[in-house]
């Protein structure tokens, strides 16, 4: 009997702790986001912010390339660092959004269908592999909700992989000033971060559509 009590303590107390920490007001606000036009506005805002941040990333890398062409390695390195920091700050924001979407998706009983990520849309090898993984496991899952959450999971892993690639490439450029930076990697990362963002926005749109359909039902 004592082992059951220990098991109960180990499993139940964390649940009580988590429930105690949770704010019911914040939970209600999440529901408001997906059940009212606020969700559509949030989607538009996210769209605009994403576009602005990605434009800044593009601009930074183009200027870094320009500085390299002009033979100004210090300026190039500064801009590469800035680009890396922009991506480093952008990715966690997207990761938080994806995590929130994953939680919100559990509220929907019938999720709209989603397609898996397309490997050919990605330039970086690591991301292509993750997209293949998504396409593979997609067919093993039965419900659209599970497929949706798999897609979110793969998107999260992809953002993390992209962040690692950019950080490593920037580090290499800093450590080996005599060697030309891997412009192809930076170029691929820029394109992939855009693709990942569009796929994340698409996921948010699907979530809102599903929530709306549920509300009407």
């Amino acid at each position, binding site marked *: 009997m004592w082992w059951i009590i220990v098991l*109960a303590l180990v*499993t139940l*107390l964390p649940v*009580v702790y988590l429930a105690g920490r949770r704010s019911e007001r914040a*939970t209600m606000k999440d*529901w408001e986001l997906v059940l*009212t036009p606020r969700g559509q506005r949030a989607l538009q805002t996210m769209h605009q912010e994403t576009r602005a941040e990605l434009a800044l990333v593009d601009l930074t890398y183009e200027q870094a390339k320009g500085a390299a062409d002009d033979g100004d390695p210090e300026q190039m390195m500064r801009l590469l660092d800035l680009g890396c920091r922009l991506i480093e700050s952008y990715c966690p924001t997207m990761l938080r959004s994806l995590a929130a979407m994953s939680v919100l998706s*559990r*509220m929907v009983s019938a999720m709209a269908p989603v397609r898996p990520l397309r490997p050919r849309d990605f330039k970086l090898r690591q991301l292509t592999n993750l997209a293949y993984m998504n396409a593979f496991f997609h067919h093993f899952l039965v419900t659209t909700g599970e497929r949706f959450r798999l897609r979110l999971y793969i998107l999260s892993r992809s953002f993390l992989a992209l962040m690692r690639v950019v950080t490593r490439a920037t580090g290499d450029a800093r450590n080996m000033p005599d060697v030309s930076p891997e412009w192809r990697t930076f170029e691929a990362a820029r394109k992939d971060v855009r693709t990942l963002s569009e796929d994340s926005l698409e996921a948010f749109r699907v979530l809102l559509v599903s929530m709306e359909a549920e509300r009407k039902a």
Partner: protein
Amino acid sequence: MVQAMTFLQGAVAAVAFVGLTRRGRLRLGWSFALYLVSITIFNTLMGLWPGRFLNWPTWLFRELTYAGLKVALAIELSGLLFRAFPSARQTARTGLLAIFSVSAAWIAMASPGSLGEWIRLGVPRIKCGEAFLLAWLLMVVLWYRIPLHSHHKAILMAFAPYLLVFTVFLQALETYGWTGTSDVNYLNMLVFLGVLIYWLIVAWRPEEVSEVHPSVAKTVQPWA
């Protein structure tokens, strides 16, 4: 001391019940209201007429009544909390059924026949099952991100840990014998008094003003 504490628990439960009635919260959980009433009745009887009611058969009858009410409460809450969420409701009900079946089988395995066996073997297992039933609801609430009314949150948050404390007390009773547990008994009674005071405060607390759109609140908590 035990007598006074028992009576005090009954009095606190009664005031909590009045609070629920005054604030119009009885409809948020009829089983819980009945549970408070039964605490009031049993504890008043035990506190005022200990010679007649403060004995093991009455204690066992009281615990079995509470157990039935807690199972009813779990079923009632699974219907209320997840009314707007069919998927969550299905998960909650499946889990409740599984926990109930496993607990029933576990109690049957102990095959308590006499009063002593029921107290030493049956009741701890019942309490453990109750703790899992109510904690399961809390898990489903967390997993599906269902917003809780403060009343429901207070019930679930207090019950799960208290039932565990109570199970530990009963297990100590079995392990260390009937005589060496008076301190544990006082502690158990004190914890339960704390739980009742917590419910009393929540029962009398005015309703919080909702910050979300009324249509959202109506969708998510249609029973409110």
